[in-house]
């Protein structure tokens, strides 16, 4: 079923690990050369920057060709769209297969985007069958979901499975005329779908660990777990959730509140116990999300200084953990260390940190007008100020 052999997949990962070891100074260059010689693969790869650019221009070509054909053939009705997008979908898949088969492309951007376009075009083609908008949307999501998982099974693109997961989780939110769920039901069903994916993937992750394909299952497991949290936390995105949250029933509301505490706790426990990095990172993110959303859940007033308290807590946790770990024997406790081992592992953080921090734009607001004496509580010296 897989387009790449198990040997190729394992060798690609082994190469990456050997390069990490070399980068960390654990082996020298000549040793790395010797070790890499045992893991040769006949695959064409490129770096992440060119990969992204190639994917972008591939998407542009596919979109332009499809619209060009629609214009030339003057197909502006549903039937025309169905035929053209359906044929284009097959063509994209065939070309992706050919590129992988003939040129042995591996995570090259082009074949990835062609596979993605194949699924998207097929979804559009399928959705054009339905005249009712909601039904066509459900059809598109079902097709995208199945297509995403199929692309993952065929090419090993983890992002495709994650996209498929998102589409599957979105299906319950589409209100159908014949089966309209209450808001709580929509969220519960969506969480159940993601939870089912988690339960299917988890045993595979436990079985394979970090060895391929266990690393892929690790990402999928963490994504599904994080997805359950995102669906169930009614206060994570205030503007988006407010309308839905208000409609949710009392038992469901408090059930989701319990889940917002339970999921990060379970995730952190499993992540720490299994030293599962994707699950650990997702669980930390969920824990921060819970701290942010807890006050609105309980109906407590949010204060301007709440982010400061959160910041102090995060800093305290980081510093305390670091100290605790580094004071253990050989700078480690229970196999965990706070020491930096691989230098190129924190490139995402470097990118995040390099973003300019917008402090200065607030520097020049209009001059505040002096209080008139009737606009606040200035009188008496101890009164609070009015509105500024």
């Amino acid at each position, binding site marked *: 079923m897989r387009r790449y052999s198990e040997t190729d997949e394992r060798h690609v990962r082994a190469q990456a690990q050997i390069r990490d070891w070399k980068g960390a100074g654990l082996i020298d260059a000549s*040793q790395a050369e010797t070790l890499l010689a045992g893991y040769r693969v006949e695959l064409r790869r490129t770096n992440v*920057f060119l990969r*992204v650019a190639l994917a972008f221009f591939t998407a542009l070509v596919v979109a332009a060709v499809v619209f060009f054909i629609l214009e030339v053939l003057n197909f502006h009705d549903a039937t025309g769209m169905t035929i053209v997008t359906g044929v284009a979908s097959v063509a994209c898949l065939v070309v992706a297969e050919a590129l992988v088969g003939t040129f042995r492309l591996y995570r*090259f951007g082009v074949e990835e985007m062609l596979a993605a376009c194949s699924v998207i075009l097929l979804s559009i083609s399928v959705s054009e069958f339905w005249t009712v908008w909601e039904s066509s949307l459900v059809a598109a999501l079902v097709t995208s979901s199945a297509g995403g998982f199929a692309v993952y099974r065929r090419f090993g693109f983890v992002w495709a499975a994650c996209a498929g997961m998102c589409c599957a989780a979105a299906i319950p939110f589409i209100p159908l005329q014949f089966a309209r769920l209450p808001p709580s039901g929509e969220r519960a069903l969506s969480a159940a779908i993601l939870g089912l994916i988690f339960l299917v993937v988890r045993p595979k992750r436990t079985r394979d660990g970090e060895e391929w394909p266990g690393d892929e299952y690790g990402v999928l497991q963490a994504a599904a777990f994080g997805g359950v949290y995102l669906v169930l936390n009614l206060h994570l995105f205030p503007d988006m959730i407010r309308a839905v949250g208000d409609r949710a029933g009392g038992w469901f509301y408090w059930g989701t509140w319990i889940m917002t505490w339970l999921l990060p706790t379970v995730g952190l426990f499993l992540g720490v116990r299994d030293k599962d990095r994707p699950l650990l990172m997702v669980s930390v993110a969920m824990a921060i999300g819970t701290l942010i959303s807890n006050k609105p859940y309980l109906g407590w007033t949010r204060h301007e200084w709440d982010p400061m308290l959160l910041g102090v807590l*995060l800093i305290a946790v980081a510093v305390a953990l670091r100290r605790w770990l580094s004071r253990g024997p050989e700078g480690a406790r229970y196999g965990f260390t706070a020491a930096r081992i691989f230098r190129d592992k924190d490139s995402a953080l470097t990118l995040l940190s390099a973003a300019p921090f917008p402090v*200065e734009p607030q520097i020049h607001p209009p001059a505040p007008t002096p209080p008139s004496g009737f606009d606040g509580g200035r009188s008496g010296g101890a009164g609070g100020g009015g509105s500024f």
Partner: protein
Amino acid sequence: MSLLADLDRWRDAGTITRQQHEVLTALVRKDRFSVFTELTALLYLGVVAFIAGAGWTIQTHFARLGDASILLTLTVAFGASLYYCFSHGSSYSHAQQESPDFAFDYVLYFGCLMFGLELGFGEFRFHLLQDRWDHYLLLTSVVYFVLAYRFDNRLVLSLALSTLAGWFGFRLFRLQWFAGSLRVDALIYSALVAAAGAAFHRAGIKKHFLEAYLHVAVNVALAASVTGVFDSSTSGIYFVVLLGLAGAAIAGGLRFRRFPFVVYGVLYSYAGISNMLLRGVHEDTTIFGYFAVSATVVIVCLVVAARRFGRDA
């Protein structure tokens, strides 16, 4: 065959030493699991959350808190950060230096953000510089540059570069980006930033900072040029500038194996060239045909570049 079995094989064959085998086996088995990145991320998020909360609190409650107490608190925070950095940091060196401890970089970052907050609040309340308020930005960026170099901190360097960009007339959040003379300001800014980065690099002062300078300079220059191309009154001259800059970015990126610059050059120049070629074209088939053909040409060129220069995954 698993990597663990291979490690045993390499040890038996003498490819790696017994000590290396022990260390690598511990890593593969996850007997030694580093959480450095996770803890650093927590620290960074903590600092950013704290500063955001401090700014919000001051903005909302400055009347109740009082100017003196706010300024005193911010000054003490900035001073304490500096004291920590000067007392814990190693002496200055032109070369790249490791942080003396885990939180060091973030303490300095925190202090710098507090300093920015303090200057912003001071101007908001007292209007010392009136219409020349932007000089605060220059002062702030100078302080940031000095501290970034003194303590070898790329976070603070990025702050310094963005603050300097503010002084050059960028009005973030005010929707005046690259309008009229700001485009020229942007080009001057990027030229100065690139020249400063190159000069420091040539002088052997913090050579590893060069890439940070170039990322900012190239993006600002290309963005300014491409918006100049989009503006029909200035498109001719900016088109030439864009092609020159994009060509330099691509050539330099390929030569020095810095592929983000190749991508910047390709994307910005493609946007500019497409705008020029499609100006006045209203036929949909021509437009779609153009994108299909031109993007295919770009893909072929990128594939050739990827095969020749960018094979590392």
